[in-house]
């Protein structure tokens, strides 16, 4: 029997808090889950630093990836199986892409990518195409199969329906992470009727659209995305933890470049500091390794590195104030000078964080040709962009909401020092 179609002797299931069960029937999927690159995802948290605010948010990229796979499986095996415009030959590549779409995430994904100017999607593709166990499994399907899976994840695959299921305004990735993140953070947002959405999704020639009678289920999903962003993903305290994480890594990198001698050589980071990251180095670095270094760095002679790493590990975070750069940008330049005068390095301790510095995912109808919106298929088969039919979506997608926060170490500013008092006054002005 061909490996591509080989089924397990008995269906395997993973118990899952969001989908109840995740069903695996294909040998290829089972083998991919067993690879060391996929198992590594157990050591990468789905929500990075959010666990410092919502203590339940310790779930991993591993569970999310299984969840995305399960949603995709239900789409292709159940919802689409008898739809005339769905090509059943795309089943396996879609399942594999759903399972592997987050394979290249690094530790504390966003902050880490920011400091070292990396892109997890590039590493996902590199793992799929490189000398890895995942590549070996995919290659057994067909010589061009790894490239196909990689193309789906890169969104450059010829069949746009397949790409849309993994990555679009309403895809399996978002449907899983909204529900999973809501479950593990314990918030009451993030819930929507996924069963209904799966029933009203319709594959068309080049895209997936929604039957118009399913509009209210989609409204719920869009609202849930909106609330999760402002209540969980953009939480100011979690952003403070992310700022410290970023600054700790930046400090370690700056010290390495300056030739500083570390008490404990950060060998896992060398290629990252040098900007020449090899695939094996990337795969070897996970959150357990990174946090071990943070522990070592708490006793380093460099006071900035030791302070920042202690702050992160002990949740001794930076405070924040809301700022309006439109009126405050000159004040910010002044503040940087005052910090320098006070001997507090502003590069690491005075940080502006804007909403555009965070991964973003609001629904925007946009303009033609900018980004594919969600289309409703009306009874007469006409396609209509969602916000043109839904007042709720129109209301939240038409409103721009952005914010800017200034993070600073309040605890380092001593009330008896006149310069510090001046800084505090300036910050709170």
């Amino acid at each position, binding site marked *: 029997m061909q490996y591509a179609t080989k089924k397990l002797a008995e269906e395997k299931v993973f118990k899952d808090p969001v989908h109840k069960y995740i069903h695996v029937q294909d040998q290829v999927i089972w083998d991919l889950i067993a690879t060391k690159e996929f198992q590594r995802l157990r050591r990468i948290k789905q929500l990075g630093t959010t666990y410092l605010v919502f203590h339940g948010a310790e779930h991993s990229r591993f569970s999310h990836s299984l969840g995305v796979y399960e949603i995709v499986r239900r789409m292709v095996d159940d919802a689409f199986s008898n739809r005339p415009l769905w090509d059943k030959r795309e089943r396996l590549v879609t399942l594999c892409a759903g399972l592997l779409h987050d394979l290249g995430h690094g530790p504390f994904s966003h902050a880490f990518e920011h400091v070292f100017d990396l892109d997890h999607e590039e590493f996902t593709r590199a793992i799929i195409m490189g000398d890895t166990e995942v590549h070996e499994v995919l290659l057994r399907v067909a010589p061009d199969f790894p490239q196909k899976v990689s193309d789906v994840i*890169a*969104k450059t695959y010829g069949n746009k329906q397949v790409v849309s299921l993994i990555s679009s305004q309403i895809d399996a990735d978002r449907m899983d992470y909204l529900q999973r993140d809501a479950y593990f953070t314990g918030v009451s947002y993030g819930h929507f009727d996924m069963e209904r959405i799966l029933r009203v999704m319709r594959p068309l020639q080049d895209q997936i659209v929604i039957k118009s009678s399913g509009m209210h289920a989609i409204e719920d999903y869009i609202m849930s995305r909106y609330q999760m962003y402002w209540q969980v993903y953009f939480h100011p305290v979690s952003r403070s933890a992310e700022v410290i994480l970023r600054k700790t890594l930046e400090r370690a990198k700056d010290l390495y470049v300056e030739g500083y001698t570390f008490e404990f050589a950060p060998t896992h980071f060398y290629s990252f500091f040098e900007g020449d990251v090899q695939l094996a180095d990337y795969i070897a670095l996970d959150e357990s390794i990174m946090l071990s270094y943070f522990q070592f760095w708490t006793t380093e002679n460099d006071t900035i590195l030791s302070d920042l790493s202690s702050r992160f590990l002990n949740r001794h975070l930076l405070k924040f104030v809301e700022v309006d750069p439109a009126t405050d940008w000159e004040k910010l330049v002044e503040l*940087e000078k005052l910090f320098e005068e006070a001997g507090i390095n502003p590069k690491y301790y005075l940080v*502006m964080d*804007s909403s555009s510095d965070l*991964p973003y995912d609001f629904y925007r109808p946009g303009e*033609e040709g*900018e980004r594919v919106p969600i289309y409703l298929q009306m009874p007469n088969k006409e396609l209509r962009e969602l916000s043109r039919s839904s007042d709720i979506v129109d209301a939240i997608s038409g409103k721009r909401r*952005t914010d800017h926060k200034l993070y600073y170490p309040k605890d380092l500013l001593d009330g008896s020092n006149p310069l510090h008092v001046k800084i505090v006054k300036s910050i709170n002005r």
Partner: protein
Amino acid sequence: MLEDHAKVVQFMSLAGEVTGRKKLQKMIFIAKKLDFSFQEKYKFHMYGPYSDELTVRIEELCNLGFLEEKMENKGSYSQYCYRATAKGEEFTSIIEEASLALQKTIILMNQQNSRFLELVATLLFFDNLTQKQRIEKVKTVKASLKLTDDELQNAFLFIDNLQQF
């Protein structure tokens, strides 16, 4: 501290006015590919390279009054025009003046239409491939554009021109 914001305002100030979000997205992507220092991350979308971060940054800059956005209703969709405001121009003083190369690049790009810039940006997105592979790939992912050989040749020439600056 707000240098990345200032760079986008400076870009717009040099362009004068940019008509269309798609065009703006592609212009900054192309500038990035030519090694001008823009930090916004791009991914491939249906219409070529696209940056969520740039979308939010533009929204922030409009909210701050550093950019002006005008919306035109085109029936089934809306089109947006952007320009830097006087307040935005003042804000760009926190960064150095743009290089002559960037100025020339922006002017040349802004003279093109968004369909052509979409093609150029997509070719640059696949710059790790050989020319033949790039053409094949672009024809696959942009099948709906029904690209002609002339358009592809012009796009390669355009990239060569930009790289001369």
